[in-house]
């Protein structure tokens, strides 16, 4: 992916105007960290920023890692601009801005935020499948908490994008870039050209709308909510401008669980499920061993099923229900047992 310069014939006047502007960029140096999940468009967003800076006459360097990160892993990009940039990589507490397309990825890289910096973080949550490993306890290995650290501006990108959000894959990033553009300076036209030169041609219009909506949303947010905020920001303190969906809504994406979901899970039993095998009835057909999702069961040396890894049982009752000889019962420490071959 290359950031292209805009060199269309017939735009010499525009170029001249750009160059004039370029001599007086609103901001002369800065550092950004962009983070998200593989496939979200982090690299495209950082390309847009880099191109906007380059077109404004600034030196730019940008670094990112691809490869395995594309497979649903973390993707992070560092962008540095100024009159002369050496390292492409930032140190912690050096970034004036953070752009996060996923909430937890924003938290992960928040250590890079400079005191006084702003982190524009999408409230979209993508909980990785590995976070669901605790099938017994139901604990989610993911930062679901609703606390909003200082410096973070939570943005429900799809709500802010409005009708432009129909083209989801390349929209969330331009909403955040719109908000960023309010603080970062550079001419509006430069931003728009950078977007037009970077996103797929058929998505240009929608992205420009999303950019504009992001920009408008953040300007209003600053006037209303931002000015009211004290040093400690809590999610509930953030008031959204009228007519705009609440930026902190955690249900913005299709994968958005409510923040309280994990906290309200009831303690469903005292201990692990109990697996009872009626040895006389088992003929060692092996069906339960094959179907057990957690591989709890195995056959012993007499070809009779035993619970070799009972701590992994989630009490789904599948083995009990599929046992042709009704030789298995699963008990949990609640009034009713979950499954039995006798039912």
């Amino acid at each position, binding site marked *: *992916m*290359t950031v292209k*310069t805009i*060199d269309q014939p017939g735009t010499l006047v525009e170029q001249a105007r750009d*160059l004039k502007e*370029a001599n007086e960029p609103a901001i002369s140096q800065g550092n950004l960290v962009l983070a998200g999940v593989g496939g979200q468009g982090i690299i495209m967003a950082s390309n847009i920023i880099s191109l906007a800076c*380059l*077109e404004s006459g*600034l*030196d*730019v*360097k940008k*670094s990112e*890692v*691809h*490869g*395995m*990160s*594309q497979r*649903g*892993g973390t993707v992070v990009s560092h962008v540095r601009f100024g009159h002369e*940039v*050496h*390292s*492409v*990589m930032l*140190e912690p507490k050096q970034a004036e801005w953070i752009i996060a397309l996923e909430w937890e990825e924003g*938290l992960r890289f*928040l*250590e890079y935020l400079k*005191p006084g910096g702003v982190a524009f973080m999408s409230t979209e949550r993508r909980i*990785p*499948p*590995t976070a*669901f490993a605790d*099938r017994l306890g*139901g604990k989610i*290995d*993911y*930062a679901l908490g609703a*606390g909003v*650290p*200082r*410096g973070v501006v939570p943005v429900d990108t799809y709500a802010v994008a409005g009708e432009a959000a129909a083209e989801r894959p390349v929209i969330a990033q331009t909403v955040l870039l719109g908000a960023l553009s309010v603080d970062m300076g550079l001419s509006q036209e430069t931003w728009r050209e950078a977007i037009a030169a970077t996103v797929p041609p058929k998505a240009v219009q929608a992205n420009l709308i999303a950019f504009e909506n992001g920009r408008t949303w953040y300007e209003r947010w600053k006037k209303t909510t931002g000015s009211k905020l004290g040093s*400690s920001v809590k999610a509930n303190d953030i008031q959204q401008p009228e007519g705009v969906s609440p930026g902190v809504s955690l249900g913005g994406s*299709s*994968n958005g*669980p409510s923040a309280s*979901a*994990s906290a309200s899970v*009831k303690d*469903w039993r005292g201990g692990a499920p109990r697996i009872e095998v009626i040895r006389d009835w088992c003929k060692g057909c092996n*069906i339960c061993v*094959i*179907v057990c*999702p957690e*591989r709890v069961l195995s056959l012993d040396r007499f070809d009779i099923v035993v619970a070799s890894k009972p701590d992994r049982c*989630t009490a*789904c*009752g599948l083995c009990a229900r599929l046992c042709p000889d009704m030789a298995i019962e699963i008990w949990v420490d609640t009034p009713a047992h979950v499954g039995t071959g006798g039912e």
Partner: protein
Amino acid sequence: MKMAAGTQPGNSLSVSADAGNNGRDGDDGHKRPGGTPVVAVAPAGNGSIAHSSHKTALFSGNEAIGLAAWHAGADMAVGYPGTPSTDVLEYIAEITPEPDIYVEWSTNEKVAMDVAMGASLAGKRVIVTTKHVGLNVAMDSLMTSPFIGVNGGVVVFNADDPGMHSSQNEQDNRYIARFAGIPLLEPSDSQEAYDFTRVGFGLSEQWDTPVILRTTTRISHALSKVIPAPAEQHRSGEFRRDPRKYVMLPANARPRHVAHLERLSKMEKWAEEVPFNREELRSRSIGVVTSGVSYQYVRDVLPDASVFKLGLTFPLPRESLTSFASKVDRLFVVEELEPYLEEALRLLGVPVEGKEFFPRYGELSPHLVRVGFQAAGILEPSGETAGETIGGVAGPSLDSVGPRFPLLCSGCSHATPFFVLRELDAVVTGDIGCYTLGATDPLSAMDTCLSMGSSVGMAVGLAKAGSTGGRPVVAVLGDSTFLHAGIPPLIDAVHREANLTVIILDNGTTAMTGGQPNPANAVDIRGRSVPKVDIPAICKAIGVASLAVVDPYDVGATRRAIENAISKEGVSVVVTVRACAESPEKIRGPVYYVDVDGCDGCQLCMNLGCPALVWDLSLDVMPKRVRIDASLCSGCTVCAQICPQGAIFASSSQSVTASTAGAGASVSSNQGERQ
């Protein structure tokens, strides 16, 4: 302005249209002596950048290398995909018109190196691209290549991966250059990547040896500005017989070794004068010897320190380095991975500090360089305390941020074979590719991963050892990996009558590196139709008696095929054939959903590790019910096939045939819905 058209990255239309003339005639404002060494000094100050802003663009290091190879008049670009080196060839194929450069994804790196040497002897300039471990595969030819020498220049581009972002080790290939006695260039940004590549071809011809151009991930995948130089014409030349130089019989090789050593001593003198090495004298109290991306970190962290910046790291300019050492009070080496430069300085008898402050593993960062200089007493400790809250005030602590590992994509055709292997409790030797992720939770169905093609050879060893506790031995590798290095060990397995099963996961592409075509595909890197290598036919020709080809989206058939193969004595092969869901095209069928009333929370489907299968957090029940994230579901039908409750349905009206609540293996697949 003509040059601008030829240097517009990605603007393939204008490049294709103009490349034959404008892109190559070199009539351009940035006059540089073509083919002679160019020191990478970007025009200073803001004004010149603005002046050139419509000619200059941001390039990744890899793109700059690809562009430079084209501008250097290279006739051929060959390599094997491997992060972070892959995009050089892809970029060349993207920006150049077809007749201009022959581009080839070779079967493996050794093949690429040999193709390059052949073309070089025919007078052509060639770039070879590999990742660091890829160069190991090419070593056999690489080691003897300086004996044979070149006719057209050969640049071997090698991308190291400190930090192992996408690699199985982090070997430091600077030692390979020293081992082979091949000149080594190390750029520190995209402009140098461009310049050094241009220069590399000339150096190769000047010294009659291939030249290694080494980057690291932070050079290859970082973007910075590049001002291109005028392009050169293709080199004219043809193959002429010279058996004493080209045929490495012992009698010929002996004098060539002597000539090689004589050249080395000449190159050492030349290294003192090359413009890619430079002494930057500032404060005399601290001097730093460094190269590559570490140079940039040093400039950021210690802007006042004197620096000896090496662009040529083999052979090293010993006299210049000794002289630099004498000018500073305290001398440091800042380098990633091995103490390559540090050892060389110690051999010169120069007191130097380095690896006691900077780690010998992983990649450096400005932060690590700062910490190192703090430990050395050069910088004041920053006084930060551990356990600070993020963002300055109380919020979610970093401890609560869970890990996010790479995963097999939704709809990945590799999931089913691993799902089956997990149930069969086989000893699984894995290989290099996306499917290495079969080792991770929840599939957890891979026991080894060593190097390209090693799955089959290791399986032979395990099977012959015969001490796997009665568990069957299964080797798993992809189509491209099989062709790369899996065939010789399969020959070994058949010839030695090893009792094992090989599963070849044929998804029709080299997926891990972004979907490059391989010899089992009917297209090449430029999209042309090419003859396709038939993997099952290769297995048959080798003498594999039990061979099955199966669709991995058909869970039952896959299970039966693998079970059957394992039950066979001798070598059995199962080829699973199903296109990658992401490349070259994103494949999406009807989205599936979970019937909340039908799901009993057994979570068997979640053992597939599909990113689209998540917990339904709207339901306050235990165990958790499963929900399918519609934005991620590819419609592959596999979860619907294995659901024991038959509770997963296509969002369109027709339901899946997963009605039999029983062993998932008995359920038929529903491939027809695949678009």
